[in-house]
């Protein structure tokens, strides 16, 4: 037990030695704080759904940042409110979708590689088929069918998001299957499923964790893209992509709506950057070869 602890400590030390990892973690912490403090920073009107950006003005024209509205107004809605509460939406989408689709992927991948043979072939072909439809397009169709709303977006992303993890786990399990320690366990008579759960899965979890954290970023981007195109969250929802979608009405006068691009855009880039840095750092830390 103490060996694992020191190994763990070593990994944490190694992780924090690299400045980009520290930066990523710091950024994440900042975002977490913002998300938690959202009701304090931008208190919603009593009784209203906090995720609906309150209407600040009834005129259609975008309004440049002022003291009252530090990020400006677009589509009649306060951008600052949208960006702050959008942090919560981003975490919601990122974590829920990546974790659930990872779960599905692990199950599919494990079953596929455990049974092997025909089961494996069929499940892998199904995985291939799902992977053949471009992610964004598939998600767009799903939201078109299911309707607008953040939860529908999440469902769409989950349905088409489990394949990579499935492949990864399957690959790792297949490789581990032929490792010496697995053959040794088999020779001792330990049943297959026990070998997978007790020996193989713990070793293959790390790459999955890395992949999950790196996917969160791209999932948030895809969800935002859907909102941007108008097939994601409902209009006026506190979500970075939705705010950006308003700027589509002002394409020819971007100088008047630059704040609608800059603030949510920066938030998105930093959020995704944070997850990417952390994911990269985790990968480098867990990979003993990379020094």
């Amino acid at each position, binding site marked *: 037990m103490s060996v694992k602890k020191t190994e763990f400590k070593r990994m944490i030390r190694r992780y924090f030695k690299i400045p980009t990892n520290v930066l990523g973690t710091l950024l994440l912490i900042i975002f977490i704080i913002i998300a938690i403090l959202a009701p304090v920073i931008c208190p919603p009107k009593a009784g209203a759904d906090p995720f609906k950006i309150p209407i600040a003005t009834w005129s259609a024209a975008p309004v440049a940042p002022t003291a009252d509205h530090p990020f400006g107004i677009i589509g009649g809605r306060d951008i600052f409110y949208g960006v702050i509460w959008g942090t919560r939406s981003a975490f919601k989408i990122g974590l829920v979708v990546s974790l659930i689709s990872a779960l599905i992927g692990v199950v599919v991948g494990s079953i596929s590689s455990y049974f092997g043979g025909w089961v494996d072939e069929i499940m892998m072909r199904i995985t291939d088929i799902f992977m053949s439809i471009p992610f964004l397009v598939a998600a767009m169709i799903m939201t078109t069918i299911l309707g607008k709303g953040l939860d529908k977006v999440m469902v769409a992303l989950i349905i088409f998001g489990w394949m990579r993890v499935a492949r990864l786990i399957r690959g790792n399990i297949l490789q581990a299957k032929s490792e010496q320690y697995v053959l040794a366990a088999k020779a001792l008579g330990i049943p297959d499923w026990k070998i997978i759960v007790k020996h193989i899965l713990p070793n293959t979890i790390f790459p999955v964790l890395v992949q999950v954290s790196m996917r969160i970023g791209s999932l948030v981007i895809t969800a*935002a893209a859907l909102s941007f195109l108008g097939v994601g969250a409902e209009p006026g929802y506190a979500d970075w992509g939705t705010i950006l979608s308003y700027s589509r009405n002002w394409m020819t006068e971007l100088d008047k709506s630059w704040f609608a691009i800059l603030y949510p855009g920066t938030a998105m880039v930093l959020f995704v950057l944070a997850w990417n840095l952390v994911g990269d750092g985790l990968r480098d830390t867990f990979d003993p070869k990379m020094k």
Partner: protein
Amino acid sequence: MTAYIIRRLLILPIILIGITLIIFSMIWMLGPDRLLASYIKSPEALKTPDAKERLIAKYGLDQPTVVQYFKWLGNILQGDFGYSNIAKKPVQEAIAERIPYTLELAMWAIIPVIVGGVWLGVLSGTHHNQPLDHGIRIFSLIGWSMPDFVFGLLILLLFYTILGWFPPGYLSYESEAVLRSGEWHRYTNMATIDSILNGNFKIFIDAFRHLIGPILTIAYLWWAYVLRITRSSMLEVLKKDYIRTARAKGLSEKVVINKHARKNALIPVVTVAGGMLVSLLAGVVIVESVFNRPGLGRFTAQAATQLDYFSILGSALVFSVILVLVNLIVDISYAFIDPRIRLS
């Protein structure tokens, strides 16, 4: 290798059928009411009381799912993708009209993306942990974290709104007038190529000007991707024993990298080239929407917002088939590049 290729070719129809199944199940999810909306051309047809049941029967929307599937599949194979409400013409025609614009963009974007990405990746990998490597990595990381539509909007903001160099859209009004005139001969429907074939350099410049914004947007995100893979592949390869042997023979570092390392490093890059294509296709939807290019991508986005089900499903089908075919080509060429596979 032939076994490998044959296996891939045999799986191909299965994948294609699988795609049709998924697409169809989405159609099925819509239910007869919404599908009906795609069939009828105006709300008038529903005015009469039993119109709905009559029309549902007419379009076979009440038949068992399996029957509907095969009927739909039959239509698809004959090239009938249904009717597009937003384009006011059959879907397959709408798609066929718009594909050249997307192809044109893809065509012009691919070379700078791949060449630039690989070059930067090799540069980064061979200067591991030096300032150049760090700089390129940051460049790559930001591109990796940047949503394409945000970047596109920023490009538009800078190069169009502020500088006025690269406008959105496809061609300027003057150029379009020329295209409509009788003197212009349409060869490929791609303005850049047609303009050369027509000998009209001015239009070539105009068309290219409108392409730069989209290309930059696609390229930046892609460089981020290609770069990372090339870089990590390069780092892996440089640790290999045969690199040490090459140096032990007295070869210069330049030869070691360009001859021995590069070819091996590119093999994994080709492998993921297929995965890149997925992103490229999806990116086209966004980029065309932001820059207002009349291609298949923008069509798909419009179909989605306006709930034109047949259009979007038709587009999805086309995208998927293209993706599968390109993946097949990539897989086969991968077998050619790696002699270990070629000769097994």
